């Protein structure tokens, strides 16, 4: 098992190199000039040239790549062309925001999705089954930004139950340690901040989690149905085992592998799909940041962020694969 983990981690190296080359070259294929984007239309040709020289944009591409990767391996992810701030610093405040949102969204998606899928499978063709599967179809089809705006209108403007957007209310003070606001409020014992940040994350997490929720619900249902139709379930039934024990203790564990696969891939979707949610709910996350950086041709930011997200993704896949063994001891790693 340890060998397996080491092997998988070693695979990170070719992924790292491949992704970096791809990101590097694709970025430069987009027409547009980072210097012009940075300085604006009123800059003179001389100012543009001077900035390009400063950024090393005139050097041949392989040399630029070598310089960039050399710095990355030393821990220097470069400086944003636009803001002059270090990329590591910019990502450091934004990535935790997106991760926090994605994790909470995933938790909602798993809890609600798996439960709904289980009940639908157990009570197949019942009203619950029909309602929840229609709801799932709805969830997958609904555009996030429309859903988000509707939620804000209903819960904030009309009912005044929840704050419209952002991570924390204006008057609330929180000492930042990890930039995961929920975690930081627990660590500093700040109950007011915890309540406030939870209220703020509720809508965006639900909105972001609708699609994974729907996908997980449907996958759970079909996987459970398959397992529930197997002989050993019939045996358990015949033996007089309680229905809910059959479902949760025997069936779910056997059905969980495909569900786990879906959960793993949905996490990837969450990290990327956060752009729209982050825009609607003014969530200062990395999705929005990368999108804006692409528009302004901020090469160092986009390159480094893509690298980090790729590494994250590989690690998530590894964890998902390792979790398989927990659910199905028959699986061997070799």
């Amino acid at each position, binding site marked *: 098992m340890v060998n397996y983990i080491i092997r998988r981690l070693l695979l990170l190296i070719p992924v790292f190199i491949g992704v970096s080359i791809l990101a590097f070259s694709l970025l430069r294929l987009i027409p547009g000039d980072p210097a012009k984007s940075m300085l*604006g239309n009123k800059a003179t040709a001389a100012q543009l040239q*001077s900035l390009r020289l400063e950024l090393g944009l005139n050097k041949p591409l392989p040399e630029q790549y070598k310089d960039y990767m050399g710095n990355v391996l030393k821990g220097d992810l470069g400086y944003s062309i636009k803001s*002059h701030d270090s990329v590591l610093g910019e990502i450091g405040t*934004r990535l935790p925001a997106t991760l926090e949102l994605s994790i909470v969204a995933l*938790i909602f998606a798993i809890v609600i999705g798996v439960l709904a899928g289980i009940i639908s499978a157990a009570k197949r063709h019942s009203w619950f089954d029909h309602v929840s599967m229609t709801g799932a179809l709805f969830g997958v089809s609904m555009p996030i930004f429309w859903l988000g705006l509707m939620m804000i209108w209903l819960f904030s403007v009309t009912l*005044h139950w929840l704050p419209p957007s952002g991570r924390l209310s204006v008057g609330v003070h929180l000492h930042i340690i990890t930039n995961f606001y929920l975690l930081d409020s627990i660590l500093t014992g700040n109950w007011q901040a915890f*309540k406030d940040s939870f209220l703020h994350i509720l809508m965006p997490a639900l909105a972001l989690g609708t699609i994974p929720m729907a996908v997980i619900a449907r996958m759970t249902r079909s996987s459970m149905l398959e397992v529930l139709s197997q002989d050993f379930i019939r045996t358990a039934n015949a033996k007089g085992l309680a229905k809910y024990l059959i479902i949760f203790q025997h069936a779910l564990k056997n059905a969980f592998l495909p569900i786990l696969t879906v959960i793993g891939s949905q996490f990837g979707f969450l990290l990327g799909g956060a752009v729209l949610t982050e825009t609607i709910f003014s969530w*200062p996350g990395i999705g929005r940041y990368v999108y804006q950086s692409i528009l302004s041709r901020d090469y160092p930011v986009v390159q480094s962020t893509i690298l980090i997200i790729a590494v994250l993704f590989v690690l998530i896949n590894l964890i998902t694969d390792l979790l398989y063994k927990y659910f199905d001891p028959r699986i061997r790693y070799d």
Partner: protein
Amino acid sequence: MKKKQFVMIFTLIVSVLLIIAGCSSGKDAATQDNGNDGAVTAGDNSKSSGEKTLIFGRGADSVQLDPSKVTDGESLYVTNQIYDTLVRYKQDNTEVKPALATDWTTSDDGKVWTFHLRKDVKFHDGTKFDANAVVYNFKRWTQSADFVYYGYMFGANKDNMKGIISNVEATDDYTVKMTLSEPNAPFLQTLAMPAFGIASPTAVKKYGANYFKHPVGTGPFVFDSWVKDDKITLHKNKDYFGQVADVNKVIFRVIPDNGARFMELQAGTINMMEGLDPEDMQKVTKDPNLKIVSRPAMNVAYMSMNTSKKGPMSSQKVRQAINMAINKKKLMSLYQGIGKEAKNPLPPSVWSYNDDVQDYHYNVKKAKKLLAEAGYGNGFTMNLYTMTNPRPYMPQPQLTAEAIQQMLKAVKIKVNVVENDWDTHLVKTENGEDDAALMGWVGDNGDPDNFLYVLLDKDNAKKGSAGNTAFYKNDQVHDLLKKGQVTLNQNERTKIYKQVQQIVHDDAPWVPIAYATQPMAVNKNVMDYVPHSTGSEPFNYIKLK
């Protein structure tokens, strides 16, 4: 066993949290007021804790808080609160008034400006403001090529980083002498631009490359904190030399989506916003808690006709006929209420606007007659270049182009519309590829020269970089504009620019289309807010009821 328990416990925790959130929401609506330092909820104009806070919602974050490093409005909007310039714009027009400088004199040849500075001013970090601070700033601005506005307004380049300001020196503690290489009448107007805010030398030296995150000026508000992409917090400068602010705190919040931002205003979690969708203007007027405040236009939208092309565009009669064939009133419907018909290249907010100019009336019959006189009674074919991105002065450029295309059909002119994204559109029109093009301009310093010289002087009609996309070359206009640049007397300059506007009207290189005001929505308890035409204004005059 473990799986089931895990799921159950989790569901339990989540439900408990949801119940807590739901139950306490009734109380929250009231307690949130106290926690939010005066932020209001809809219908509730409380400032319960006594702290007055302005919460301004905008669509994007500032880039850097060092005004000499940026050109984006979001940065300069915030720095206008933190820094002062030597002179500032008056509240309701683009003339200048003393700020860090109390008075000034110019030499007879207009090349030497002597500024006397205020003696009672301190930067937010306690450093004394004096002539050395001003000299330090000017030197800093010319050290690298990234102060775009300095280069643009003062003609700096690689070989001459100082541009026309050849020397800046402190003749005593509170007097600065600036020597220019040539007279520059708009000099004061330019110095009033927020880009030329004076920074604390101590802070600049202390923070070095990170100064842009730790701005220190002399302005009515002091910088507190910046959470990137989220909010910037300022508090009032109690020792400000000008009018001390009525509000205690100003918070600039980033809310990218226009709809979401408007809903925040409706919910009361922000009390000012920019970027109001014209469709939402109705909702604001109907809402008892909100009101519209308009930023006067310092822009102009127009169709330039390429006079350098042989053929119909080079004929004055044809251009006048086209002016008469276009129904500007109808074009305003594409502006959703924020556009006003334009007759001059200058908007009314800029001094020397010539209201005596008589615009061409919409008259198809007369247009046809003029075309026949010019030899184009049977019409002709032309192209019209337009951009695809909305611009501040033209929210729907493609529809505007199509509307013009329709209107010119009536006088037998066949128009082919050519669309490009903004950057490409600029390149092509600056190269003179078009017969006519939809264009626009947003003023920089509120000086008429900034409109007329840039857009209509023959100096700027060079292929490849033409700001004068009509390639309009009139020697009389040129001589007048050159004179206006070196005449320091404002009345004289006004006469000159009024004359230029009349000549331009008669020659008709353009069809001026519109001036667009930017509507902003604020809570009714925000009083005395006067948005400035240059795009930003200091908030120390605002009162929160």
